[in-house]
């Protein structure tokens, strides 16, 4: 592997950063096994691999969060020990994590002030102008005075990128950067990356999206089960080869549900208004219906009311006016438990912080919905035997890869946590499934599995609401596609006649033209 890479190296160029034979072992798992790669100035290096392939732990080693059990890191040719993220930053290595690590109660400027040296008094004084200037320069627009908790996931990520850029990162690591971005934002991000490239900086991009790898990277390293299984120039490979390398098997093809005879209406929204965190309505007079057996895709740029709509349907947020009917029963402003009991499954957008309790075991998390009832509860007492049996069958059915059912859920990879959530949410045969970004951050195998499960459930008669920014996914799975913009539905298009162009226009705020019936 090293040989293959050195052949590509121009001898005069010292890599900005090189990882040499990095090994990282966790109890029971070898996360990285003798992994080597180099990042040179002026390149975007893509790190490809399935969930659990060891990409994130490798980058955590480089960023000083983990200490490697073997191997060496060189920065500008010198062997360095990176003991903490502070060390990494001083060496010019910046990380933009998959999940933003920001102080939610503070403003954007205050969060950035935490990352840089500023004056003791009024630390954000000079920063705001700088943030705006940098944002302008790189196309990362964000309001410095906004509180972080009010921002969408995409906007929060922009803050993280700005933070690294303001620190003057020479090597920027981006962990699944486009998974929370809209296509336009992703394009803007690529512009940023290209600019960094031109200025001789190095970028490492961790992603599953092969299109992006092909579009933006100069070189690619593919990891599988902690090992490097391929390293090449982007120009010398193609998507199919990469996919095969990455998963080591053919990626299953996703089909549409093919349901022709729809069932009863399972969800009916009438003139629904929902207030956002800032108190103003972010879902406005929205009406839609989902019937059993159909998949309704909700497309749209992040932050156009999708999150609030989902929360209003699932009982996590109040509806200021209008009605939410589930299976014909008015369940407006009922709590999450009542709505679950009415047969609604909710696959939440933030699976780590909402979908599971990280410190509880896999078995306990699988019982999170049902522990108040038989078979998990016998009167006031919990029935652990029943929980364990359910956990054992669930991890088998949904192929959850875990050391055991008593493992703390926090230790599982993102894909396995999502499978766990699916196993739990779908256990009671819900008639309505609200899935928010269900494949975000998942590898190809898990993505296909999740998509197949949704289609199977639709075939079995459930109504599915698929909220996703991944237009390709929405087009692949949905029978009808609703596009949200500024809290309203711009139009609902049957998949057969939907075009990317038309959907794109609607995502930008143009109302649907006359639909031919």
């Amino acid at each position, binding site marked *: 592997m090293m040989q293959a890479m050195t052949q590509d190296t121009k001898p005069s160029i010292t890599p900005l950063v090189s990882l040499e034979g990095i090994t990282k072992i966790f109890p029971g798992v070898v996360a990285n096994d003798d992994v080597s790669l180099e990042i040179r100035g002026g390149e975007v290096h893509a790190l490809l691999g399935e969930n659990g392939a060891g990409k994130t732990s490798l980058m955590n080693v480089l960023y000083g*969060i983990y200490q490697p059990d073997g191997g060496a890191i060189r920065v500008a040719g010198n062997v*360095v020990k990176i003991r903490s993220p502070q060390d990494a930053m001083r060496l010019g290595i910046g990380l933009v994590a998959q999940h933003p690590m920001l102080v939610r109660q503070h403003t954007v400027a205050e969060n950035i002030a935490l990352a840089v040296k500023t004056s003791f008094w009024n630390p954000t004084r000079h920063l705001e102008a700088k943030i705006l200037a940098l944002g302008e320069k790189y196309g990362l627009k964000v309001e410095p005075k906004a509180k972080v908790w009010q921002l969408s996931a995409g906007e929060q990520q922009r803050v993280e990128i700005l933070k690294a850029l303001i620190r003057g990162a020479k090597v920027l690591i981006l962990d699944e950067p486009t998974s929370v971005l809209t296509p336009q934002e992703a394009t803007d991000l690529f512009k940023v990356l290209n600019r960094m490239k031109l200025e001789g900086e190095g970028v490492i991009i961790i992603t599953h999206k092969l299109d992006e790898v092909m579009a933006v990277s100069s070189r690619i390293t593919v990891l599988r089960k902690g090992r490097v299984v391929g390293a090449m120039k982007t120009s010398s490979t193609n998507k199919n080869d990469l996919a095969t390398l990455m998963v080591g098997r053919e990626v299953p093809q996703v089909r549409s549900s093919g349901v022709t005879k729809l069932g009863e209406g399972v969800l009916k929204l009438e003139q629904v208004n929902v207030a956002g965190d800032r108190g103003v309505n972010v879902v406005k007079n929205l009406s839609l219906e989902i019937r059993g057996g159909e998949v309704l895709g909700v497309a749209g740029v992040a932050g156009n009311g999708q999150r609030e709509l989902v929360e209003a349907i699932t009982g996590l947020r109040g509806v200021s006016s209008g009605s939410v009917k589930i299976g014909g029963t008015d369940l407006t402003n009922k709590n*999450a438990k009542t709505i*679950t009991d009415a047969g609604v499954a909710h696959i939440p957008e933030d699976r780590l912080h909402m979908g599971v309790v990280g410190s509880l075991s896999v078995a306990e998390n699988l019982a*999170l919905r049902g522990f108040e009832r038989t078979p998990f509860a016998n009167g006031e*007492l*919990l029935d652990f035997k029943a929980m364990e049996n359910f956990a054992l069958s669930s991890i088998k059915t949904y192929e959850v890869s875990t050391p055991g059912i008593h493992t703390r859920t926090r230790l599982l990879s993102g894909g396995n946590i999502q499978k766990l959530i699916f196993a739990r949410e779908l256990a009671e045969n819900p008639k309505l499934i609200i899935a928010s970004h269900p494949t975000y951050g998942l590898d190809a195998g898990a993505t296909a599995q999740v998509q197949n499960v949704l289609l199977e459930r639709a075939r079995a008669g459930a109504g599915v609401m698929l909220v996703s920014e991944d237009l390709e996914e929405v087009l692949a799975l949905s029978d009808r596609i609703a596009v949200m913009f500024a809290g309203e539905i711009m139009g609902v298009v049957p998949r057969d006649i939907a075009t990317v162009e038309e959907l794109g226009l609607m995502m930008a705020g143009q109302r649907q033209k006359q639909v031919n019936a």
Partner: protein
Amino acid sequence: MSLDTATAPIKRSNARQWGPFNIETRETPPQSWLFTLSMLSVLATLILTGVIFALYGQNPITAYVTLAQGTLGDLSSLGVVLQRAIPLMLIGVGLVVAFRAQFFNIGAEGQLLAGAVGASAVALFFPNFGFLEIPVMFIVAFICGAVWGFIPAILKLKLEINEVISTLMMNYIAISIVEWLVNGPWKGKNQVGYSYTDTFPDAAWIPKISSSTVHYPTLIVALALVALVAFVIARTRLGFRMRILGENPVAAKYVGINTLSTTLAVVMLSAGAAGIAGAGEVGAIHHKLLDPAQISLGYGYTAIIVAWLARGNPISVIFTAIFLGVVFAAGDVMKVSLQMPAQTTNVINGLLLFFLISTEPLVKLKISLARGT
């Protein structure tokens, strides 16, 4: 950061090295590590207290031997330890539950006093329950304590008022109410010149083990409560709700757990337990309601240390309460045998809490000896 210019790659560049140790972070510390940290805090406290002994001109070693003999050396001194441990155990186990549910109850002192007032009211004004007199005192004390906890709990849940402040303020209200009662409406007719109520009738005297001050009915209630709490946390739906709520409030909302009723149940259990401790103090030790500073001796605050030392484990409270009971009893020994002020125990308690909180950042670290490179 170290720019190591050596060319040989590091074979085992383990965790962040600090002297001879490797340091790594982990999300889920094992119980043994928590125990080690608690023991280290105790050790650091003992060493620093040793310095204080030395400053008083005492040889720390002989001083500790004297203290050990004076608190653990014979049955009667063990009785004193146990007497102190009873309220600490009751309050401590309640605080473990409250802390685990993310409710930082600093108001056990006031809840204890509320319980003492309730028990006194039963003893003074309803002395005719016969053999049920003491159970009724306990029940009323539990209810009074729970009500005292309910107020800050509902303020937090409905108006998001920080419970650390409100529970603390409720302590001062309770102190003032007790002072008013013993100086005013409840002042005993036979207690000329003293701010006491009348002495309780015999039926309201909580019995003790022979000649000691160990009021065993309260001790039994305390142990039963520990067992009950351990069982509830581990085995019941309420306990599961509590754990979800305490460890991920967002997930609790997602699952539809009723935050209001769960938190209220937890806080009222916690505050009610402190109330029972108050009944024990007035019913077994003083046999009257009196100056609040004499009723409690700061059990409500010391129990915070009891709960913290137990690290969320209700069963551990039995042992940590006895340990702090030893510290309390040591105060008397210091006064008598070492000619030191009994308030030294406050210093010990303060140091202990200080070290316990100081070791919190270490909880998520994994420290091991560096292997030779």
